[in-house]
């Protein structure tokens, strides 16, 4: 067994025994699941109403067939994705930071580095442990969510929906690994641990909360519940005509929004799950084509964060005193 695997195994064992970590992961699971349960219950009510309506029509001998409601059960995942986006990102930071902090604060690092461990073994083992942790967490969350959709919502999931869920899970995994690796890199590379933590939290605030929020707030359509244009009874073509006059403004607004990798994560997930209406009738390949830029950006950002974590978590940085 190589040193990297030895380190990864130890980290996973340590995480598994950590009550605080269990609490964090449990919280994400409960939050994401609850949001789907609420949605699924409503979904089922709508479905029941439709079934009753059809039954009533049949009983009255009517030959008119009612159009089935346009229901996309995967749209119920909106809340879950938002939880992963916000709290998931934050928790990923806590876990990634802890990987380095707990070792730096304690003398275990001296035992570790008095052993002949290779250059990338410690960093590699820790990143591998993070990758496995988030893989398991994401697998559990998405399995539970799917179960809720099927059982509580009695949602008729198609094979293509499972494909969509798998892609969304992979996207969530990359996103969580991104934040964990970034937190690990900052905890390693800063002389004082607290500096690293503050830096990564500020980054989280800006990337996850502030930039997407500014983008959202600047969108006039978001100012009225249900949508500005809808409430003004403006039809879609007219809406586009109106917005054409504000093209410059909207470019800035959109530019701001898409400068955040969190927004890319959100748009990718929303597209693949069909949460954004324009995508829910498209085949997966078409969705993938249209969102390619976001996929690339997320993959590159995650890879860069992992690379940074590997490069910064060294004998030299971890042994630096006064941490």
């Amino acid at each position, binding site marked *: 067994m190589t040193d990297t695997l030895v380190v990864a195994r130890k980290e996973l*064992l340590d995480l598994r025994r950590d009550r605080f970590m269990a609490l964090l992961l449990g919280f994400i699971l409960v939050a994401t699941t609850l949001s789907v349960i609420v949605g699924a219950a409503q979904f089922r009510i709508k479905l029941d109403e439709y079934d009753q309506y059809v039954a009533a029509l049949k009983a009255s001998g009517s030959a008119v067939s009612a159009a089935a409601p346009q229901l996309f059960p995967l749209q119920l995942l909106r809340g879950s994705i938002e939880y992963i986006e916000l709290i998931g990102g934050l928790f990923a930071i806590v876990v990634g930071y802890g990987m380095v902090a707990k070792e730096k604060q304690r003398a275990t690092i*001296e035992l570790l580095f008095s052993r002949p461990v290779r250059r990338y073994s410690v960093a590699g083992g820790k990143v591998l442990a993070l990758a496995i942790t988030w893989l398991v967490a994401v697998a559990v969350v998405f399995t539970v969510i799917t179960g809720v959709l099927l059982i509580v919502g009695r949602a008729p999931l198609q094979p293509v929906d499972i494909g969509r869920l798998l892609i969304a899970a992979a996207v969530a995994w990359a996103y969580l690994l991104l934040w964990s690796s970034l937190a690990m890199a900052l905890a390693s590379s800063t002389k004082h641990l607290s500096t690293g933590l503050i830096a990564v939290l500020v980054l989280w605030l800006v990337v996850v909360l502030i930039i997407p929020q500014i983008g959202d707030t600047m969108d006039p359509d978001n100012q009225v519940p249900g949508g500005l244009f809808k409430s003004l009874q403006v039809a879609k073509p007219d809406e586009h005509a109106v917005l054409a006059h504000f093209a410059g403004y909207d470019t800035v607004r959109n530019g701001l929004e898409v400068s955040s990798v969190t927004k890319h994560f959100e748009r990718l997930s929303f597209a693949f799950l069909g949460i954004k209406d324009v995508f829910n009738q498209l085949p997966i390949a078409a969705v993938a084509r249209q969102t390619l830029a976001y996929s690339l950006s997320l993959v590159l950002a995650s890879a860069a964060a992992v690379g940074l974590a590997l490069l910064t978590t060294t004998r030299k940085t971890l042994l630096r005193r006064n941490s």
Partner: protein
Amino acid sequence: MSEIAIRTAGLSKSYGDKKALVGLDLEVRAGEIFGLLGHNGAGKTTTVNLLTTLLPPTGGQMVIGGHDGTANPDAVRRIIGYLPENVQFYDNLTTLENLRYFGRLSGLRRPDARIDQVLEYLDFTGHENERLGTFSKGMRQRVGIAQAILHEPAVLFLDEPTSGLDPQGVRKLREIIVGLNRDLGMTIFMNTHLLSEVTKTCTSIGVLTAGELRYHDSLAATLDAFPDESSLEDIYLHLDSPRVA
């Protein structure tokens, strides 16, 4: 003439302007128990951190067990064991899990049999499956020693190994140190500011004052060299008094 386990020449370490160790020239022969005495802040921990390759020196050379410490630190790491001052482990892991971890990182493929053997030797069986978080200082120290000798190092470094232990713990540890030297032939380098440690366990001593090695000789020679001093303590205090420029 037995072989040299530790040799340094002009070994130095500065933290910014602060000179923690100044031009250390030292030879410790294989099979010795060398005690490095010094007041708080004398540079003992710095010296051990340099010799265990945890810190890069600012100057000078060191050779441990025939391996150049700056050119080939991994070779040094393979033949040394280290017990830091206030040793700490992964508290969520058991004795066995902690020792397996460090044993594997020291190159043992199947560490379990060796762990059993070492725990038996240290008289510390029965705690294998207890987590370190619940351990007393003395128990932790015992696991620390186990960790340091698992891979049968040629040279063992101990930083203030008895600090914080109760009298029974101190005596037990002393027996262990002497035993490791006698039974396994380990060369031992230990830091302490307690004179009694040195007289009871060491075969040679050095005295470090403000980063400089002011004295180095065998224990027997030291006792001979200061016939008119009433006790070794006086020698230590005499040597250790701040240098008059």
